[in-house]
C-alpha cells in the first residue's frame, strides 16, 4: 500500500496546460471521416427513393412527381447508410454537424430538383 501515488499527475495538471480545448475561441477540427450532416446534390438525384426506403430511421422523404427530396434532421441518426446505397452518388456526409435548433419547424430541410430528369 502506498500514499500519494497520484502526486505526479496532480503536479502535471497544476503546472501544465489545460486538458480541455478553449472551445468558442478554438474550434474543434473534424476529421475527413467524420460523419456530420447529410447533404444532397439535388441535380444528380433522380428521385428513385432508394435512400428513403433503406433509411433505418425513416428520415428521408422522396417524391418523384414533385421532384422533392426531404430530410428530417432530428430523425436522422447519421448512420451513413443512405450515402452508401445511393446509386447516383448524390448524397454525401458533411464534416460539420447539424446546427442545434430552437425551433422545431426548422428540422426539415427540403430540396427541389430544378432540371427535368430523363423521363420522370
Amino acid at each position, binding site marked *: *500500500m*502506498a*500514499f500519494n*501515488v*497520484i502526486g*505526479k*499527475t*496532480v503536479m502535471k*495538471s497544476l503546472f501544465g496546460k489545460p*486538458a480541455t480545448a478553449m472551445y468558442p475561441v478554438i474550434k474543434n477540427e*473534424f*476529421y475527413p*471521416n*467524420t*460523419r456530420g450532416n447529410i447533404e444532397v446534390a439535388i441535380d444528380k438525384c433522380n428521385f428513385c427513393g432508394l435512400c428513403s426506403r*433503406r*433509411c*433505418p430511421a425513416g428520415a428521408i422523404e422522396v417524391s418523384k412527381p414533385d421532384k422533392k427530396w426531404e430530410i428530417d434532421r432530428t430523425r436522422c*441518426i*447519421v*448512420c*451513413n*447508410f443512405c450515402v*452508401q446505397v445511393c446509386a447516383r452518388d448524390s448524397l454525401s*456526409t458533411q464534416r460539420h454537424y447539424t446546427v442545434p435548433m430552437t425551433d422545431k419547424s426548422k428540422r426539415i430541410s427540403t430540396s427541389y430538383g430544378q432540371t427535368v430528369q430523363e423521363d420522370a
Partner: protein
Amino acid sequence: MGERTIIPFGPQHPVLPEPLHLDLILEDEKVVGAVPSIGFVHRGLEKLVEKRDFHEMMYVIERVCGICSFIHGQGYVQTIEGIFGLEIPDRAKFLRTIWAELSRVHSHLLWLGLMADAYGFESLFMHCWRVREKVLDIFEETTGGRVIFSVCKVGGVWKDIDNETLKRIVEVLNVVEQESKALTDVFIKDFTVQKRTRGVGVLSYQDAIDVGAVGPTLRGSGVAMDLRKLGYAAYGELNFEPIVEKDGDCYARTIVRVRELYQSIDLIRQCVSKIPDGEIEVKVKGNPKGEYVSRLEQPRGQVVYYGRANGTKYLERFRVRTPTFANIPALLKMLPGADLADVPLLALTIDPCISCTER
C-alpha cells in the same frame, strides 16, 4: 438482531445515471437481501427486427448500447454471417478486432473513472476520462463517429484503415498506456482505495459459476473464462490468456479491468503487426434462412445473440442477451452481508449498463 427495513435504491441516479432499482432489505446497517427491478426504459428494439431489413437492422442494433456499440454491431453481423455460413476476408476480421479492442480500452477507462467517482475521487474520474478522449479521437478519425461507428456490415466492414493510420494508432496507444499507468496505480496501490474495495462484496468461485456471472465479474472470482478464446474474428490468431484474479472482491474486479486495459492495448499491437492486406468485404447475395446463436466477449462480459431468419429480408427474431442481464443475479449474491454504504460500489463493480439490458 435489528429490525428489518427496506430501502429503495435507485432508479434515480443510483450510482451512475442509469435506471437500476434495488429494494434493499436491511438489518441495521447490513444488507440481508435485495430485489432488483429493471424495465424502466425498456425499448423493445429486438422487435424492430421485423420491420427493418437485415442490412438496416445493423444500425439499430448498434444503438442498443452507447459504450459497446461496436461489439453489438459485430455480434449482429456475425449472427447473420453465421446463418449465411459466410466467411469474411481476413483483413475485415482484423479490423473488427482492432475496433472491438479499442472499445474495450475506452469502456474500461470509462468504468475506472466511474469507479473513482463512486468513492469520491472526482479528479481521478476526470483524469481517466481525459485519457479516454484520445481513444474516442481514434474512433472519430477511423470510423467517423465517436460513439456509434456504423462500420460493420454483413460480409465485412465499410471502411478500411490504412497501414499508416494503424501505426499512428499504436503510437497514440503507447501514450494512452503511459498515462493510464499513472492513474491505474491509484486503483492498485492507494491506501484509501484499498480500504474501500478489499474484502468487500466477495463472490466465491462456485457462486460466480452458479449464478451465471460473466466477464470481469466472473474472472475476478478466479474463473478463467473469456469468450474471445472461441477465436471469433481474429482472436484465434492472437496470443493472449484470460485475466484472472482469485479474491472475488471489488478490488479483484477492479484489477481484472485494469489488467484487461493493458491486455487490449497489447492485442491491438499484435493485430497491427499481423494484419494482412486484402479485401475488406464479400458480396452478400440473397436473404438469410436459418437460426444461429453467437457469443462474444464485451467489455462487460459475455453477450449472446440469437437470430432466426425465414428467407425473407426481414428476420423473424433477433435476441440480445446482454452481460448486465446475466450479472444482476451475481449482484444479488454479492449484496447480502455488505454495508449499506458499500452498495453503490458493489452495484458498480458488475459494470452495469442498463441501457443495454433494456434493449
